[in-house]
């Protein structure tokens, strides 16, 4: 509705302004106080100039003090926006590894210097961060990203630049389908994709726990959906039937409509491939809907996270998970990693991303040591043949530059993970 007002004088805290008759409400700013705005503008210009000057001074200083003998490594992860909750772990894990390696004398005597790049879980931003690292910071290695869509966009870019990309966190199978003999020479991945895991989890639930009807409730991403595609390959041989198939957005907080269905479907398990922060939501709403104790969670979503267990202990009892790392893995090195992480970050518990960024940076360091060189081409060749002694066991890479990782299968018993087996991942590549 065009609100036509007659010519009038608006009295507003002593300011006077004439409002032209045809002018709609919204354009009054145009006539209010040009002088005051001018004053503000000058003040702001001065302040801005000052800020800019001091910023440049800091940069110049940083550049002057940068040592020549360093290994420059970029870390790309989401640091702002909704996905920042995953990226923060990644960056902290990498920083911890840097400090430890540097304290132990560095890589072949050279210190590691890290550069942080923010991807916001968005390929455009991720590629910008990478380009900046390549031509401004002149990094030789890049770790990243958490989000598969960003990693896929980084792959062709590092290929042109001959910089080594080691991915510690994306699970889209395409990433290594296209690497190694598949094409990209400069992409490696030290993170499991779910070819074997899906089968192991399903088999355990069907044969040991005797569950034959299951419902799917996984995250709506390449990770969650990809795991279910692989799970389906093993349904027939285990005699399992899926009662429903739902995928949630990673911002979802209301699962009651789905749980209401699952309660009536007779499913004995919910197959969930997701990230740790959704686990307590689903678990608590399972308690609320009366599913706790009747339906177990299986898959992979850090069911063993102590905060998640604290949020809904009865719903997580009996949960089955296959994971590439668990904090409870009982070795001195794992305990030392967790203790160091907590000491550095005010008691914060590391998650799987923190672990993999930490481990992957060490992996690059060890490969450089074996190659007796920090040149990325030498390290790349070393990675192809390396047998890396990780916290969880030996890691080596297949001809698609994909790590074959040791995995743990556990079941939550009395709120603690009980290890039920170990296995190694292996990818079957499409012909």
């Amino acid at each position, binding site marked *: 509705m065009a609100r036509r007002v007659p010519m009038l004088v608006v009295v507003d805290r002593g300011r006077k302004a004439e409002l032209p008759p045809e002018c*709609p409400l919204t354009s009054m700013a145009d006539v209010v106080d040009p002088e005051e705005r001018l004053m503000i503008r000058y003040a702001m210009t001065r302040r801005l100039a000052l800020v800019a000057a001091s*910023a440049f001074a800091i940069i110049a200083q940083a550049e002057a003090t940068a040592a020549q003998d360093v290994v420059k490594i970029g870390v790309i992860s989401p*640091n702002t926006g909704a996905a920042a909750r995953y990226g923060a772990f990644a960056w902290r894990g990498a920083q911890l590894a840097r400090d430890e390696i540097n304290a132990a004398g560095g890589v072949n005597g050279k210190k590691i210097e890290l550069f942080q790049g923010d991807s916001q879980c968005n390929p455009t931003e991720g590629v*910008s*961060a990478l380009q900046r690292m390549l031509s401004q910071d002149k990094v030789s290695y890049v770790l990243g990203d958490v989000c598969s869509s960003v990693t896929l966009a980084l*792959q062709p870019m590092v290929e042109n630049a001959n910089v080594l990309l080691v991915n510690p966190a994306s699970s*889209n199978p395409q990433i290594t389908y296209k690497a190694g003999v598949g094409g990209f020479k400069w992409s490696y991945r030290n993170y499991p994709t779910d070819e074997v895991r899906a089968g192991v989890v399903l088999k355990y639930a069907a044969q040991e726990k005797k569950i034959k009807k299951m419902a799917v409730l996984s995250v709506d991403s390449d990770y969650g*959906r990809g795991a279910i595609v692989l799970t389906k390959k093993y349904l027939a041989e285990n005699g399992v039937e899926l009662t429903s198939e739902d995928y949630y957005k990673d911002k979802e907080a209301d699962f009651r409509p789905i749980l209401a269905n699952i309660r009536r479907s007779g499913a004995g398990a919910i197959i969930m491939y997701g990230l740790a922060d959704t686990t307590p939501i689903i678990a608590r709403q399972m308690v609320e809907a009366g599913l706790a104790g009747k339906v177990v969670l299986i898959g992979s979503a850090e069911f063993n996270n102590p905060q998640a267990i604290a949020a809904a202990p009865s719903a997580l009892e009996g949960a089955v998970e296959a994971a590439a790392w668990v904090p409870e893995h009982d070795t001195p090195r794992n305990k030392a990693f967790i203790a160091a992480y907590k000491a550095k970050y005010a008691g914060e518990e590391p998650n799987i991303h923190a672990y993999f960024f930490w481990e992957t940076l060490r992996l690059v360091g060890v490969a450089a040591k074996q190659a007796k060189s920090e040149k990325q081409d030498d390290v790349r060749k070393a990675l192809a043949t390396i047998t890396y002694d990780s916290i969880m066991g030996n890691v080596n890479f297949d001809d698609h530059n994909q790590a074959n990782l040791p995995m743990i299968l556990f079941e939550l018993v009395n709120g603690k993970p009980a290890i039920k087996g170990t296995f190694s991942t292996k990818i079957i590549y499409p012909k």
Partner: protein
Amino acid sequence: MTNPAAIAIPSLKPATADVDIMPTWLGVVLAVALLAAPVLLDSYYLHALITSMIFLLPAHGLNLIVGYTGMMSLAQGAFFGIGSYVSALLAMHLGTPFWVNFLAAGVVTGLIALPLGVPALRLRTYSFVMCTLGLVVIGETVAKNWISVTRGDMGLSGIPRPHLGFGVEVTTITGYYYLFLFLAVVMTALFWALVSSPAGRAMIAIRDNETQAEALGIPTWSYKLIVFALSAAFAGFGGSMFAHYLTTISPLTFQMYYSTTILIIVLGGGAGTIRGVVVGSLTFVAVSEALRIAPELRMIIYGFVLLLLVFWLPKGITPLVDKVFALARGRST
């Protein structure tokens, strides 16, 4: 019914004023600088320029809606996504040359927008904004669940580099730069021709007073529908460039990020002017990249930049650009 005038458009100068304002010598300097950029700048700056040119075309499209018909839309992210998928699917399945993919992305996106515009354009200004937001969410859901075509969340990766015909394939960042510069210049010229044509004047009439425009015999409804489709087509062109540059897309291409970035470029640059949007696309990419020196503070500072803009330059960057042009003109004569 509708009152598009609720959006206050800063400049009522005809769009044709654009070329008069920039002094010739500055134009020549800029043209030479743009052509020489790959010699002068390293790949990071070229990449930033490429990014701003990818955003420029969807921004032109949005400018058509906001600046020339007075509505505001958040649908550019959806059309950007559609364009990227159309272009990628053509290149991957049919191996068509880049020009075909590029044009098809625009045309198909425009055609898809046409039926969507019919219900959307019946809405009033604010309802229209939110309805267009819904298109982004719906687009993402379709891309995620129409797995036989889009491969769902796996996304499309390995999209071929742009084939220009005659065996020419763009692979280097310099190649992309010149290709996209060419497209940006041609599309901007086309956009300029459109808004300074009689049709463009009719659009401005609709923006300024729809009822009066209708009374003057302008078929306002058809114009608005065509504008909506054209703006979508421009977003589709941008999507095509995006897909061929990154060589991978996923349902995340349908993201509010693209809608809001493009909106910031148009409103912050100065809706209703071509120079505002061109400078806006350069400025906002530059600001966002410059802030990478402080990764954790980056988005907070970016937020403050937007606030400063609102209070410091409420009409966008355009008046500042004009001042620079006037200054340059003064010195040149």
